[in-house]
């Protein structure tokens, strides 16, 4: 028997209603992502990549279609269940880092762990492991504004892996970074994938960032193009 895919999306559509206009963000997408994959989603602005990522994260709901993650249909979950599920199974990395400005690096990484019922010592151990992994063990008591952009993003990655999720989702993780920091962040993500077997789905504009991924899929105007195909022009 084959192990079920980590993510299985079938006939997914997402239509936004803007006043009287219907905007089709995603049209009938089907996609399977295997455990241990490192997939980059690319495509022009408005092609639906972020919508797809948000739906996989359970931040947005499909208009129609099914999203199964580890065999669980998240489209059928209630908001409360989904929130809990997200905390345990998804690590999210944003373009603009989104650390809480009044909390130190340590406290930011600890934040999602507060919902897990771990003891204080266990949480501390998890945070320290994650911070060591991203190479910022000496920056734990720094506030976000005392860190560089690249360091902030590494703290955000530490926050994403702190709960040991099965899937890391990254939305333009290098979008706000200079070339050098972007390279650091991408190397870190690639290492998490190769050495720790973390499955990663990343949305990006940056071909250099996508180069680190094991596979690239393109979206164009809400359509997921077949494997190996790029949008024309």
């Amino acid at each position, binding site marked *: 028997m084959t192990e079920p895919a980590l993510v299985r999306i079938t006939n997914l559509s997402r239509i936004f209603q803007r006043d009287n206009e219907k905007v089709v963000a995603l049209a009938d997408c089907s996609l399977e992502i295997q455990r241990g994959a490192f997939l980059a989603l690319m495509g022009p602005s408005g092609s639906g990549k972020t919508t797809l990522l948000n739906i996989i994260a359970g931040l947005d709901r499909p208009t129609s279609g099914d999203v199964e993650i580890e065999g669980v249909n998240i489209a059928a979950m209630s*908001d409360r269940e989904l929130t809990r599920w*997200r*905390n345990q199974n998804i690590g999210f990395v944003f373009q603009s880092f989104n650390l809480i400005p009044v909390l130190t690096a340590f*406290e930011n990484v600890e934040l999602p762990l507060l919902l897990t019922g771990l003891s204080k010592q266990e949480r501390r151990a998890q945070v320290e492991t994650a911070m060591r992994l991203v190479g910022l063990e000496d920056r734990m008591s720094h506030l976000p504004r005392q860190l560089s952009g690249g360091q902030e993003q590494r703290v955000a990655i530490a926050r994403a892996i702190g709960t040991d999720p099965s899937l890391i989702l990254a939305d333009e993780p290098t979008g706000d970074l200079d070339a050098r920091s972007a390279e650091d962040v991408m190397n870190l993500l690639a290492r998490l994938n190769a050495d720790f077997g973390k499955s990663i789905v990343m949305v990006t504009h940056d071909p250099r960032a996508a180069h680190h991924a094991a596979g690239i899929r393109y979206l164009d105007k809400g359509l997921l193009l077949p494997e190996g195909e790029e949008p024309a022009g």
Partner: protein
Amino acid sequence: MRYWTIIWRNVARNPRRALLTAVSIGFSLFLIVMEQIAADRRLRLEAFSERGYYEAQTAAGSGLRVLASILTVFMGIGACFAAMNTMYAAVAGRAREIGTLRALGFSRAGILASFMAEAVLLALIGGWFPARDAARKTIVDALRSS
């Protein structure tokens, strides 16, 4: 819970906003307490003596007092709106933060509660002292005049 850390540090980071909220809430509480106690005193005065009652009725201050009451109510409502506005700005300014917390798996209820806690905290700080002083002053005045 870490919510309290976030609340305290947000208050410390933006003391002007916190003060404004606290003062507006405090001011409205002050007015409400004044009004309550004054109303209570008028009721008690009624029971005093017939002479006192007619004195109060014929006094030129009677119309003025009604006017003052109305003014108090309107100013109280105004202060409530001011407090609401500053809290609203505080929430709007942290929309991104709220989104992040949601993405990390925090519940809507928890985040709502943390903002409520912040408002209540400011209301207690801003409301306690003026309300206490208002109560003390009006009670002392009432005792003196009776």
